[in-house]
């Protein structure tokens, strides 16, 4: 239940659908997929059939015709089952919108239905080994070649990099133009000569989410691969979407805090030490109180931000604020809750150990929290 102005009972019905899907299709495979370091293509097809993909995309493109809440509900539900690394949101709410908002009619017609059906799995390739969060410093280039382009360069930390067959690649069409020289290209990987996937990176957490280096060696791109058909729009296109993407990260952070507190409250209520339940120790209660307070603040903050977003006054600075604050608090809460679990907190069988390992990513991914503070600091 999200306390937000336009949230309706219909959304709660959707939540039930999602919850059922997660319980049936995901929970039983969690360990297996985490061991494999990726999710199988069938999952995406099933998710498509169940209506969990591209929920916000217009129905005429095969999408759910839904709103932001649908994306948030999926995040919330996958968090409840401690499956932070399902990347439906990346596919549905980060990449598909680029195509729906900026794509040509041909691009919309060609890709959106397949993404909604899960026939195609999408990834976005921005970050590069040398550039980190500094998008303007990317070195990947797309140089004119006949009526098309030749893509050359290297990307890193690309989620879905192993499973994706449609990759939205940020490249320089004009290396001298800085931000204005960046364009986005839609690369269909099947049979793309010169495209190579690096090995699946072994991460601290989020084990079932594959993350890869990608290599482009003079990959041929047809003219239709240019998103929106006009060069130099990439930077603006990416920036425009950031606030919404950060709201989605915040939803995950808040839900993780709430779950961690609840799991830990149960644990300290059940476990005994020195002849009394752990919850009778003042330290346990104080730490839980601090964690609970952070979770409650995070929830209020998030819900308020959702309303602001819907009202159209949630800007880049607010996006930076909610991203660093919620991911930082998520980490603190996960760490404290693990500690309250004692030795069991370090054992993988307890969800808190996964939430903890997963939580470390939020402070780094989607622009490090230092970048966020820099963005905010510049507006003073």
């Amino acid at each position, binding site marked *: 239940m999200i306390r937000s102005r336009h949230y309706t009972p219909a959304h709660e019905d959707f939540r039930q659908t999602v919850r059922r899907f997660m319980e049936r299709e995901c929970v039983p495979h969690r360990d297996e997929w985490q061991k494999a370091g990726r999710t199988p293509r069938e999952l995406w097809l099933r998710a498509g059939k169940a209506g969990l993909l591209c929920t916000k995309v217009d129905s005429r493109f095969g999408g759910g015709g839904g709103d932001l809440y649908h994306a948030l509900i999926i995040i919330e539900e996958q968090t409840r089952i401690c499956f932070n690394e399902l990347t439906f949101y990346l596919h549905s709410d980060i990449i598909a919108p680029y195509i729906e908002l900026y794509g040509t009619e041909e691009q919309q017609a060609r890709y959106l239905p397949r993404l909604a059906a899960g026939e195609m799995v999408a990834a976005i390739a921005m970050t590069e080994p040398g550039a980190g969060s500094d998008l303007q410093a990317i070195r990947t280039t797309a140089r004119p070649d006949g009526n098309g382009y030749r893509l050359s360069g290297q990307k890193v930390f690309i989620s879905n990099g192993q499973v994706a067959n449609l990759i939205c690649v940020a490249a320089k069409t004009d290396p001298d133009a800085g931000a204005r020289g960046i364009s986005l290209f839609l690369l269909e990987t099947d049979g793309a000569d010169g495209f190579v996937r690096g090995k699946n990176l072994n991460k601290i957490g989020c084990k079932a989410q594959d993350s890869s280096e990608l290599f482009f060696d003079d990959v041929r791109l047809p003219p239709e691969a240019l998103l929106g058909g006009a060069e130099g729009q990439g930077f603006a296109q990416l920036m425009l979407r950031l606030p919404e993407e950060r709201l989605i990260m915040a939803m995950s952070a808040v839900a993780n805090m709430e779950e961690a507190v609840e799991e830990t409250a149960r644990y300290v209520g059940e476990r005994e030490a020195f002849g009394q339940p752990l919850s009778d120790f003042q330290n346990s*209660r104080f730490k839980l109180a601090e964690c609970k307070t952070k979770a409650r603040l995070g929830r209020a903050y998030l819900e308020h931000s959702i309303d602001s977003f819907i009202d159209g006054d949630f800007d880049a600075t607010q996006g930076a604020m909610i991203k660093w604050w919620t991911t930082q608090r998520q980490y603190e809460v996960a760490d404290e809750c693990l500690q309250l679990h004692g030795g069991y907190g370090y054992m993988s069988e307890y969800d808190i150990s996964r939430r903890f390992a997963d939580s470390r990513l939020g402070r780094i991914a989607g622009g490090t929290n230092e970048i966020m503070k820099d963005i905010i600091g510049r507006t003073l």
Partner: protein
Amino acid sequence: MISDLPYTDEHNIFRASARKFFETECAPQQPAWEEAGMAPRTIWARAGEMGFLCSRVSPDHGGAGGDLLFSIILLEEQVRAGAIAPVLSLHSDVVAPYLAAYGTAAQKRAFLPRMVSGETIGAIAMTEPSGGSDLQAMLTTARRDGDDYILNGRKTFITNGHSADLIIVAAKTDPEARGKGISLFLVEVDKVQGFSRGRMLKKLGQHASDTAELAFEDMRVPASCLLGGEEGRGFPQLMQRLVEERLMTAVASMAMIDRALAMTIDYVKGRKAFGQRIADFQNTRFKLAEAKTEAAVLRIFLERCIGDFMEGRLDAPTSAMLKYWATEQQWAIIDDCVQLHGGYGYILDYPIARMWLDGRVTRIYGGANEIMKDIVGRSVASAARHD
């Protein structure tokens, strides 16, 4: 300051006049009042005249019958002006509500109009030298004697204790019982025998507000002074009021944060060190970015709590979260702001230094934050048990 609260034109006009009052009639007097250790009665009368006392009391008793937002506005503007004294909110938002909520018709008639006008200044005496936050351990007793009660005991940390003529005194009418034995008495201190005030307590800050120790030696008061006319209601009455008091504490902390940030941002933009503006050091930008974010988060949570409170659905644990978090953030942010002021941050001519000293008390009063965490912690633990 952006706010989602349902302020009307009436509120905004009220805010403007409150701002003028605190800026022109209170702020300039603070040094003098600090010397005196308290604000003079005249300013109370003036506040009454301006309609800045007990703004929520119903018109039947001379009040404006306003909503909580009027109290919030007054508190915000007083903080904004940097006026510690007079401590109106204690009088208007802590003491008066006891009368309005629990007083008999006669008690309301007798006291509320005079509190609205400022003729009568109110205080409340709960804490005892031995007891701290543990009300049930209270030692002050009120023994029934014919038509009177005879009170014996001592109180401490009583804000407005020297200014007040009406003090609500918590005492045990049944010393055997714990909470159930507590009753509240309306004591007109000039009309009773056996009442004495200790010396003015010297504090770390808040020098313009008077804090007293009180002693009752066989202090005889008529039975009509028993709040609500019924014994043993004191503890629940005190408990019921706590949620609003925590909310108001958070309102004050929020206002302090806004003030501290505003003056610090001006400061770091205006000063240079090692050839660049202090505002241009990454450390400064990060500290202020963190503070601005914390301020935004707190305001959102605070205003949600205010909204819930006005709809009668703010629970005790949530109010405890709010009090603890708001005062800790206020403290941490003001401390960072002092640091960004460098040497000037330690000089009391700079308001930030004063805010630091005055502000340290909020983590302690209105129930120390340790008490708040205990309330929240118990609720979390028990909620889990009842799953």
